[in-house]
């Protein structure tokens, strides 16, 4: 039955006698190949080796830095509106001319002179983003002119839609356009129409307005001193502020709003969980430590809180705090999250404490006469810390979500105070025409939630030191 293959050693190589000498003295009985490391060190090592965790940590740190330190670097008022730059996409600094609108004073002579060249039909007298002025060669027999404005180039006459303006034929046929002009090419299409609505003549002219800002707006936005005479300012150049992430529908800088909104969102997202995780840990710890009837009653209470419809009660607290429609209910939101959020942590910690109580080292400490406080501090707390840290990390994204959700439906942070949720609420209205207004705050929320979730995952993995090696 026994396989003899392994037995015996080549006799040729005789083994030196001295090798058979017994080992002397005190010997190390354990053969230790790896240095032994402590629990926290172990956790930290595992965490450090998790690449996703490190990336998540960097993202979280950057977001916090962005919100806390950002406003010092980017000194733009998040509430400052700018009529001239509403719903802008991301833009850098731009030079603009300060202009002032007055009624169009023109001379027939100048018109005649510009029409001297027979090749020219349309003349652009002014073209800036405050006003565009054109005149064109009059058409014999026309009673009126239909002027269309297109941003898609020279369109066929059936694709132009409704006319921008319908102008009675005069000696100087002309148009002044002040309707929401931006820095892009516009093609003006002019139809000369007779009394039977027949199109006699069609002109088209492409215009590229230069960037301009009205004196009033410049003064309102503090770009030029208010006391300066209009004549001194008019025609001067001016640098308009950059908007790296664009502006919203009121012309407010989105980057600045994201920073200030981040302060609100992250504050709620971190503060509320911090309080309720701590309270839950205390509550659950006491219930688990005392055990028996106290434990039963305390956990029954926690069950009731869990059964409350969470979001509805979040909103009820708003009513309780007498937050009027349109007001920010940050404190109401905080209190509600704390009051309603603690039971899950309480359950978790209670479970841990109950388990720990059964463990031999705690029993031993009790038998040795250690006081409860000592047992809690030395044995319970270090063992519960992992669970606490993990549940805190997971509570943060859900709090950020809750804030965003409530602000989004208009029952959280209200304008003008920005939060990422309320910015989404603003952005969704212009989603179709200017998607960036929704996208940036949505990305901020998602990034924060994602990073905290990944961080939580990594922490959970790091704290769980059980490894699936089969028993031999």
């Amino acid at each position: 039955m026994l396989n003899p293959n392994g037995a015996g050693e080549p006799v040729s190589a005789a083994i030196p006698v001295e090798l058979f000498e017994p080992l002397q003295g005190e010997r190390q009985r354990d053969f230790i190949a790896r240095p032994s490391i402590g629990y926290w060190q172990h956790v930290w090592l595992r965490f450090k080796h998790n690449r996703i965790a490190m990336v998540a940590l960097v993202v979280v740190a950057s977001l916090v830095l962005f919100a806390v330190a950002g406003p010092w670097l980017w000194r733009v008022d998040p509430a400052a509106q700018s009529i001239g730059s509403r719903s802008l996409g991301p833009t850098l600094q731009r030079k603009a001319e300060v202009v002032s609108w007055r009624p169009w004073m023109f001379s027939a002579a100048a018109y005649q002179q510009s029409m001297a060249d027979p090749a020219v039909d349309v003349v652009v007298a002014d073209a800036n983003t405050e006003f565009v002025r054109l005149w064109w060669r009059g058409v014999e027999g026309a009673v009126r002119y239909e002027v269309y404005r297109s941003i898609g180039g020279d369109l066929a006459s059936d694709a132009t839609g409704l006319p921008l303006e319908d102008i009675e034929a005069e000696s100087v046929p002309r148009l002044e356009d002040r309707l929401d002009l931006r820095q892009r090419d516009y093609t003006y299409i002019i139809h000369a129409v007779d009394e039977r609505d027949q199109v006699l003549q069609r002109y088209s002219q492409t215009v590229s307005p230069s960037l301009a800002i009205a004196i009033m707006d410049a003064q309102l936005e503090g770009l030029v001193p208010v006391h300066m005479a209009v004549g001194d300012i008019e025609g001067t150049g001016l640098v308009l502020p950059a908007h790296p992430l664009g502006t919203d529908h009121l012309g407010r800088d989105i980057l600045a709003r994201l920073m200030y909104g981040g302060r609100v969102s992250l504050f709620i997202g971190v503060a509320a969980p911090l309080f309720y995780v701590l309270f839950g840990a205390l509550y659950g710890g006491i219930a688990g430590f005392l055990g028996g009837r106290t434990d039963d009653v305390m956990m029954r209470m926690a069950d009731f809180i869990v059964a409350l419809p969470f979001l509805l009660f979040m909103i009820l607290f708003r009513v309780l705090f007498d937050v009027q429609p349109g007001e920010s209910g940050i404190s109401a939101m905080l209190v509600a999250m704390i009051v309603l959020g603690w039971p899950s942590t309480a359950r978790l910690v209670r479970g841990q404490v109950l388990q720990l109580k059964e463990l031999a080292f705690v029993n031993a400490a009790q038998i040795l006469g250690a006081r409860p406080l000592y047992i809690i501090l030395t044995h319970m707390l270090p063992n519960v810390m992992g669970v606490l840290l993990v549940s805190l990390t997971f509570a943060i994204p859900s709090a950020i979500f809750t804030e965003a959700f409530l602000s989004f439906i208009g029952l959280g942070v209200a304008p003008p105070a920005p939060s990422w949720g309320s910015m989404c609420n603003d952005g969704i209205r212009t989603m179709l025409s200017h998607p960036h207004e929704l996208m940036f705050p949505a990305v901020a929320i998602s990034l924060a939630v994602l990073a905290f979730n990944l961080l939580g995952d990594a922490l959970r993995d790091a704290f769980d030191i059980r490894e699936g090696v089969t028993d031999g």
Partner: protein
Amino acid sequence: MAERELLVVDELRVEIPTHGGFVRAVRGVSFSMEPGKTLALVGESGCGKSVSVQAMLGLINVQGLRLAGEARFMGQDLLAMSEAQLNTVRGARIGMVFQDPLSAFNPTRTIGEQIAEGLVLHKGMAKQAALEEARRLLDECRLSEPARRVVQYPFELSGGMLQRAMIAMALACGPQLLIADEPTTALDVTTQDQILWLMQELQRSRGMSILLITHDLAVVARMADDVAVMYAGQLVERAGVDDLFSHPTHPYTRALMRATPHGEMVRGEPLASIEGSPPDLFAPPPGCGFCPRCDHAMRICEDRVPLLFTSRRGGGVSRCWMEHPDYSRARVVGDA
């Protein structure tokens, strides 16, 4: 090649990947089994005895597992088989009994269903016939009220009853080899005894071989024909059961025996414990694995792994330098 042996394991190596690298759980284990006999694989937990058997049957479901060596069952190498080929052996020709009967049964299906499963699969039985056969098997395994047990769930049975049911399940398709992995460890003493009786009785009536994995020398003495002692992923001693108990050769085997309570002990006599702990199998020591804990350790033990030498007394082999032919010569020189 027609072999007389039912199972021949040759230089089996198993390395399990973990976060910190590969654990060299089994480091070249060889043994063989004859039909109708019982071989006991003995060692403390973590020594690789379960791992070697489970790896052989492809039961370790770990990605990146490294396997080497051969395990010929009825002439065919189990390690070279595809999963589909293995499935015609597992359950049909090799039955397996696990340590903890409660966790080894699916909690949401009845005992009968779980026994019948193998019969339907390997013998092509109809569900109803298989359930009837399951009842008969439970009866054969001396389980009371077998007809009721068939429709009961695992949690409704005691540990001892479940272990009987598990033996019935392992025997369902009439295997040539029954592998029992610590079959009595999770049971109380009286139940242990009944289960061991049952296994012996079934072995006699069915003529099968049993590969018994255990750490309990009392069980070994009672059940085994041959014994293989494992330590730190290696076989350290192999012998017939009588030889092993009358002349234990390897210091580990001897230490193990001193650490086991036995009939001739005097009241108050302390049990010897083995000082220290087994080596870390991430990085096995260069010499004999038992060297740090051995009372007889020599200089050679620290840096050279001993082979399996034929024991000077008794008929077995032992992985110890003290059994090397040069050892006695050295002793003579040293004593002089």
